[in-house]
């Protein structure tokens, strides 16, 4: 049994070193992740006098007149956003992967460019892009039947408009990642398939996409989380239109209002926990389905 004991001793040694590698990160995680999140959950369960209120904050928030519409908006948005993002990113990454190297590099840079334009000032860009009278794509908007900015952003159009904006800023970074992940697939596999007579579509379907499963799973988890926590895009369009989009269009905006307009950090925390649970349920489903946490 000396072999097993030796192995176990080595294993324990390795485990101790494992702790050493994650120690510094663990400090940061505790200080800036666990502690604030824990405090937020504590806020969600108490009131301003410090008393425990059970699920009282949650029921109060669910009864708010803005709660239902906000989640309805985000539901429609998510349906559009997830489909567009996954199809768009995977499709474009695959398409890029079949091209000549230099064109690909240029294209990747161009696709990524809008992602750098994240931020509060991009309201300027969308103010002009969405206004048929001054937009470079005004001909397209006019063809769709819209003659004014106000017409483009009527409530019925917002999920699509916001999904377009989110795709514009977000797709480039994901394409870079997916493209790199595609590069990990060994050439011999692709060569072998090609020799067997598989066309590019078959290769994509049978080899590349299955090997991208972990990355796609990851992208869906985060896209769902960021989509359900949408904040910047509706805030932007709201600013650009001087208020035509309600400042509680999305649940995350409503949480922000609770915190900073109503001075009610407890309701904000409760709503945030709602969003967190939503994201986690999706993550749990995808993690268990795709074996994301497994070691190879």
């Amino acid at each position: 049994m000396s072999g097993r004991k030796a192995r176990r001793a080595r294993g324990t040694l390795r485990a101790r070193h494992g702790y050493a590698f994650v120690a510094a990160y663990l400090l940061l995680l505790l200080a800036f992740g666990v502690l604030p999140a824990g405090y937020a959950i504590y806020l969600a369960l108490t009131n301003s006098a410090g008393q425990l209120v059970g699920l009282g904050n949650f029921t109060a928030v669910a009864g708010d007149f803005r709660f239902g519409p906000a989640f309805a908006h985000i539901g429609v948005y998510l349906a559009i956003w997830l489909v567009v993002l996954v199809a768009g990113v995977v499709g474009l990454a695959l398409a890029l992967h079949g091209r000549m190297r230099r064109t690909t590099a240029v294209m990747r840079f161009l696709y990524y460019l809008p992602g750098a334009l994240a931020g509060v000032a991009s309201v300027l860009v969308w103010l002009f892009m969405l206004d048929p009278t001054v937009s470079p794509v005004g001909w397209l908007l006019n063809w769709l039947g819209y003659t004014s900015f106000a017409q483009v952003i009527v409530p019925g159009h917002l999920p699509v408009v916001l999904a377009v904006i989110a795709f514009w800023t977000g797709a480039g970074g994901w394409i870079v990642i997916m493209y790199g992940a595609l590069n990990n697939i060994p050439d011999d596999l692709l060569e072998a398939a090609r020799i067997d007579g598989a066309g590019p579509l078959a290769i994509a379907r049978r080899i590349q996409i299955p090997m991208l499963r972990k990355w796609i799973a990851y992208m869906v988890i985060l896209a769902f989380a960021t989509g359900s926590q949408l904040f910047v895009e509706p805030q932007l369009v709201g600013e650009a239109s001087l208020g035509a989009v309600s400042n509680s269009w999305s649940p995350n905006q409503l949480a922000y209002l609770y915190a900073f307009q109503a001075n009610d950090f407890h309701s904000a925390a409760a709503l945030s926990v709602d969003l967190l649970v939503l994201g986690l349920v999706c993550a749990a489903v995808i993690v268990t389905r795709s074996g994301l946490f497994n070691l190879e």
Partner: protein
Amino acid sequence: MRAASVRARTAAVVGERPSGRRRPRGGHGMRLRRGTTARFVLLAVLIAFAAFFLIPVVWLLLAPTKTDSGLVHSNPFAFGSLRNLGTTWHYLVTFEDGALLTWLRNSAVYAFGALAITLVTAVPAGYGLALTEFRGRKLLLAVTLVVMIMPASALVLPLFLEINAAHLVGSVWSVILPMSFFPFGVYLAYIYFSSHIPRDLLAAARLDGCSEWGVFWHVAVPLARPVVALVAFFSFVANWNNFFLPFVMLPSSGQYPVQVGLENLLSSTPSFNPAAGAGLDITRPELALAMLIAIAPVLIVFLFSQRALVSGMLAGATKE
């Protein structure tokens, strides 16, 4: 440490030439068999999307060359004049006595400061999570994921109270330290190390007598250049674009990073904020120029790290 032999063994296992460069990918074996029509369709799709991504950027590039009413009345793709560009530049840099430069400098300090700490913490953490086994490994991964998904508005108050308790409010650390917590970088490194560093390699190094630290430093890190570049890049971009944290933490306008400064600039533009009133020289072309200047560093970093980002093996995830 017999680094040379370790490296050679690495190369043999991974299939790279000792110099570390991969075989260049060409268009040879990849030419479509189904005819040139499919190829053109694909090209058309790629170009259509390029147009989709590019048109607003081109508009933004041309905007500072026009006057505010020029933006409204002239063709969106028309070039204004260099004189307008000069005027726009002048108004922008004289805003609040050269605040723009201060903002850029602050952004650089915060972004690089947090980036340094992130690299030192996230890469080893990813390695530890991927290639060592210890109790609580899965728990750590799960907790990291949970914390990533928590909405920021709930974290503002606790973070502020924490920073205040440490008497750091108003110092650069109130921004750098929270920003250096970059769980996505940890996941990036985790996925990379778990997918692309074969355990046999590490086992071999251990057999050769390497200590755990030696295995990490002499085997894993040299192979981890792509993911280090990736973590660095995304961390830098996230830090550079972070608006909310500095917005809440920094009391003095001399400390604003460029994103908060842009928000100030936006509020000084009468078209967005009529209460700002006439008299200020900030209009939409100045705002456009400010945006372009604000994103320039990100694009430069992207250009430099493009090759590292996608060369060879790559893994990662980010939350935009």
